[in-house]
């Protein structure tokens, strides 16, 4: 057995998922299925990753970056539940993994990186927040270019237009979801009661589709109609990643509370009324001051008693406030 503990670096999670990246999710699920003793580092800093991306598995000074490499390494270290499968089922694992890569991955890449609205609203802000400063300026762009290249070269080409490519890859992805749903049937996992590496891959691809709040997610509408696939994803999340669900619930609670306090702030009428009264008073006094300074209002104060006592015979004047037009006091 390994003397040194394995270390797995993955993208950070969000929206109740342990990670946002399909490949990281697949590796995480595989490790959880078989209880691999592994140190999981959730990070947003791919500075030290050899490919500039995650997942990365480090063990005994070696780094493994591709999902297939990580799976085969873990298998070599005798971790995983694929040993229980018959040779026929192992063949199915290879075939369906290829199906996912060929039919579903292009649609996911398109959804996250090439759909303008999603890229601007969700993907780029998320990665810009997760990745530290100098890297955040060019890493999302690089990943986007890579995704575009892959989708356009494998599915598009000079002979078909962009919209046709888009229609084609989403059609293929929906077909792929149907095929997976047929394959799963009513079973708990693809090959009965034990999860295999194929289940890990499927979970990785489907969980972000189901949980991430993407604005243009047309695959979501299709996926929720495949009940058994949704059930498996939710079961895996509840069984193997309860911490992330709790985290999300707490976050939601906090946000709700925040929203509540915000709304109670808004409904605090006394303060508002006081402010209104103060403002009204200020406006009134300002108008009065203007009127007085321009001579619209004159205030004359004469001491009635002393005036009357000084000269009663003089044309008697009272302390008076005269309000008049522009032509001054009458």
């Amino acid at each position, binding site marked *: 057995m390994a003397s040194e503990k394995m270390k797995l670096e993955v993208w950070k999670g969000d929206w109740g998922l342990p990670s946002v990246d399909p490949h990281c999710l697949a590796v995480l699920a595989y490790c959880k299925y078989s209880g691999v003793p592994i140190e999981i580092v959730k990070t947003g800093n791919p500075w030290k990753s050899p490919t500039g991306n995650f997942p990365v598995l480090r063990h005994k000074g070696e780094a493994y970056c591709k999902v297939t490499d990580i799976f085969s390494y873990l298998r070599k270290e005798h971790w995983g539940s694929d040993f229980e499968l018959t040779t026929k089922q192992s063949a199915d694992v290879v075939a369906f993994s290829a199906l996912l890569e060929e039919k579903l991955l292009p649609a996911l890449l398109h959804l996250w990186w090439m759909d303008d609205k999603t890229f601007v609203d969700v993907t780029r802000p998320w990665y810009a927040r997760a990745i530290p400063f100098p890297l955040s300026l060019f890493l999302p762009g690089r990943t986007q270019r890579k995704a575009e290249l892959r989708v356009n070269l494998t599915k598009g080409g000079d002979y078909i237009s962009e919209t046709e490519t888009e229609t084609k890859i989403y059609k293929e992805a929906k077909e792929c979801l149907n095929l997976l749903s047929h*394959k799963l049937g009513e079973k708990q996992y693809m090959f009965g009661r034990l999860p295999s590496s194929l289940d890990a891959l499927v979970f990785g691809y489907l969980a972000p589709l189901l949980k991430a709040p993407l604005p243009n997610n047309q695959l979501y509408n299709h996926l929720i109609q495949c009940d058994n696939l949704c059930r498996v994803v939710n079961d895996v999340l509840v069984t193997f990643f309860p911490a992330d669900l709790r985290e999300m619930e707490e976050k939601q609670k906090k946000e709700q509370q925040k929203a509540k306090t915000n709304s109670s702030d808004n409904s605090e009428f006394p303060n508002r009324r006081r402010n209104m009264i103060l403002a009204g008073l200020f406006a009134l006094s300002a108008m009065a001051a203007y009127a007085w300074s321009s001579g619209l209002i004159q205030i004359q104060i004469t001491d009635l008693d002393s005036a009357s006592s000084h000269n009663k015979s003089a044309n008697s004047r009272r302390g008076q406030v005269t309000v008049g037009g522009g032509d001054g006091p009458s």
Partner: protein
Amino acid sequence: MHPVTYIGRKLLPREKRYAIIEREFLAIVWAVGKLSCYLLGDAFYIETDSKPLTPLPERTTIGQRQEMALVADALQATVGASEPWPDDVLLYQQYKAEQITLPDCTQCLAVEAFLRMCGLRFNVKCKTNAEEMSPSGKVPFIQAGPYLVSEFEPVVGFVARKGFSLSRDMSDTDRSEMRAYMSMLENILGNAELYMAWFNPEISNEVTKPRYGCSYPWPLNWVLAWKKQRAMIALLTANDWASKTVEEVTEEVHTCCLALSEKLDKKKYFFGDSPTELDALVYGHLYTLLTTKLPGGPFTSVIREFQNLAEFCKRVDSAYFSD
């Protein structure tokens, strides 16, 4: 832009019972059918102000574009199904002996095997510029009446719309397994063939590039072959295949063949006694890999390890290619 023609007709009594949305589809399908002589062979737009088309299933998020795809599917289905399989179907490909490259050869053979398994009439026509003639830029393609259809999966779809299918009676589970294995062939063997033919320096310089350029005069034969090689290397890079070594590629091919061998087991064909699309595709790939002589002989020894796969190739060959 200005109008060229106005067309219209009364609804038949039964069509009056259609819902509005169905009438709108009817209008589009009818109009395109009527004007097909002007529209065939060209891309065109259909403008519609139909708000009621929006609540159709699966199109709630994307709107117009998908709508058009749906209409296009409906059109292809209705127009395509109305005509039987024509007598003069031609399968275009490059010259087998001198010109065709390894990846193209597998695809041509797979399509040919598929059409033969369906029992459809067709003639193979070799053209040096078949690649440029193809609507998708890839060989092979078939010409059936006014339609040009290229590559394996579109041909399968086209043939299915004419009422011929090898997988109609399969269960859903079997069909999804079949699709998965077909994906595996394209994904692993297809990429491995591209890798060997264009990325491996020995084979690409000695075999693939001279063959690809053989029909052009100097210096075009070098320029075009070089351009093609660059495009193929870009494709392999985008697929993460360019970073693999020859040993890793051979290992992938071994995994793929092992899976196929397990799936085939001792059966006659992959799903019982009658062939399916998968059988055509497997035959196309394996037969080509087994019979093509390339320096270094890649994969031949790998495939020969699996007795039942080699026997399978012989079986299909004698059953469908005996003439």
